[in-house]
């Protein structure tokens, strides 16, 4: 059984936002406009978090790309009253949009704030409507959504592999953000396979997880040379 995980090397990340843009385009994320965005209504499946440490003149600024952590023990799943969010046997945490009642308990329970709510009916500029991704369903107003590790790409890859009559190879399934990263700071693969890149990197000395002390066991691993 696969256990999908992501490794983000912060020492290589240049903060170019390519992952954020690739994610928005891949997953049909609605564009809410600058006004609503300033009010905190914009949706990010992948977000660049700014970390500021210290005080002037000794300020250190760091950027941290943050997708869904796909925790092994997700806080969001426990609190959902209708089972609209689940973790599958491959460790992916998903949302059933048509079952979600929009109570936003999961969004408040998630310690990483990765969950987004559709405050309005989704909208796109006229020019963009033709280029929506047909593999990803559109979320209507009033439901919660979040990063899926581009699960639709896995489904597609499985179909392709089946048609070609071979095993799934590491390069067959890669989320859009990882694919778009120009500095090669992001890796994706099977954490259960001890020889995969992500598996090897996750055991590196530089490796850490976000808010590790909460016991959520994220499957997104960061690499950094210390502070």
């Amino acid at each position, binding site marked *: 059984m696969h256990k999908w995980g992501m490794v983000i090397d912060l020492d290589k990340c240049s903060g170019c936002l390519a992952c954020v843009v690739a994610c928005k385009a891949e997953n049909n994320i609605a564009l809410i406009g600058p006004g609503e965005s300033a009010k*905190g*209504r914009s949706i990010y499946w992948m977000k660049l978090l700014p970390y500021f440490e210290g005080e002037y003149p000794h300020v250190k600024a760091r950027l941290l790309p943050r997708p869904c952590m796909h925790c092994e023990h997700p*806080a969001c799943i426990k609190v959902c*009253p*209708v*089972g609209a969010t689940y973790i599958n046997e491959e460790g992916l945490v998903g949302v059933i949009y048509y079952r979600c009642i929009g*109570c936003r308990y999961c969004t408040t329970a998630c310690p*990483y704030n990765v969950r987004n709510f559709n*405050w309005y009916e989704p909208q796109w500029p006229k020019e963009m409507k033709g280029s929506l991704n047909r593999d990803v369903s559109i979320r209507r107003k009033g439901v919660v959504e979040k990063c899926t590790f581009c699960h639709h790409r896995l489904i597609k890859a499985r179909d392709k592999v089946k048609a070609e009559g071979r095993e799934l190879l590491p390069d067959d399934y890669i989320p859009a953000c990882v694919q778009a990263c120009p500095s090669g700071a992001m890796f994706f693969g099977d954490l259960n396979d001890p020889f995969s890149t992500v598996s090897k990197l996750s055991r590196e000395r530089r490796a850490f997880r976000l808010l590790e002390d909460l016991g959520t066991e994220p499957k997104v691993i960061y690499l950094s040379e210390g502070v």
Partner: protein
Amino acid sequence: MEDIHLKLEVVDSTLQEDAILLEPIRRTGKAFYLTLFILVTVILWATFAYLFQYRNGLGVTGLARPIFWGVYITNFVFFIGISHAGTLISAILRLAKAEWRRSITRSAEVITVLVLFFGVGNILMDLGRPDRMLNILQYPRFQSPLLWDVSSITIYLTASSIYLYLPLIPDIAILRDYAGKWQWFYRIFALGWKGNKRQHHLLEKGIAFMAILVIPVAVSVHTVVSFVFAMTIQPMWHSAIFGPYFVAGAIFSGIAALIVAMNLIRKVYHLEDYLRPIHFNNLGILLLIMTLLWFYFTFTEYLTVFYGAEPLHMEIFWSKFTGRFAPYFWGMFLFCFVIPLPILSLKKTRTPLGTLIASLSVIIGMWLERYVIVVPTLTNPRLPNEAVLYFPTWVEWSILAGCISFFILLYMVFTKVFPIVSIWEVREGREKSMAEMRERIKTYLPGIGVE
């Protein structure tokens, strides 16, 4: 016309001094219709606000990321809290055989049953997809504290409705026999009450059973409401004190709501003889105890956080004490403690008017308390986030106003259909309790009554 006049005379001679209790049902003045008109206007406005939200999405509220919960959840906790007055107070006073309860239990029990709908209603209005609310029954997951809420509130609503209805039966029978209007309606709900010995025995057994049952249910309801917050690992929510803290707060705001309701009933229906200063004095003492208990819980909660001084918690702590939530926090402290404490401590000010002022203050304070619990924690999440300031919009304020108006309206209508002071219980008190009390006192005191 002649016929009705005849009936009124019959009523007056049968009920004698208690005839005034049927007065609100018999006659409805201009003031009632005027109030009704104002309330309906507010309710219609709130309905418009909700439809506006339903059409456009929750973006019309002040909510945003990361503050996903705001006034609706505050209202939910607040209204469920208010509901604790009735049933709990009435049940405890009944079980304690407090004789002064007789004229106040009904008005308390009605609050419970009616206000519960607004607690539930606020949760439903908070949903992004209210059209899918039945998913809670179709795909329930009992691991979620929200499901615990659904279960315990359903049981509570059922139990407190039965508990309200049982003592109503003899009074409905009185209405069936004397009221003149809607006899078919009263006949159905009187369940063939004749007032014989066997029926009285059964009724008393039923009431006693429900009074005992309703207490643990009421305690569980507000504990479970607090669990919605306490079961998450969010800072300053994840606390074991939340259960008892919420229950105490609920009883606190509930007694306050009861005192306000009693004050209104007393003035509007001229029931000064039934709701006397002694009732307000006694409830005032109860409210005073709850004021002190509220302070104790609040003090314990914040001291624990302050002493532990974890940076994550302290950020929220200071945002309440000196930061952007300071007006709400200190407002809460003022309304929940500083204003009611002196009023309720002095016997001179524990009058109907004094307790009314203290109670209004407590109600405002407790709403602020719920707000101060919900919003600051969400404003300060663990990871860096959008610096968003939540402030409710006109939609949320309108719906709050609508809920309060609707509650008052339902309460008013209730007083027009059923006697708001239990007629048979007051009568029973007058006829039987003196002798009973004498017997009971005999059993306590050494030297007398022991054969």
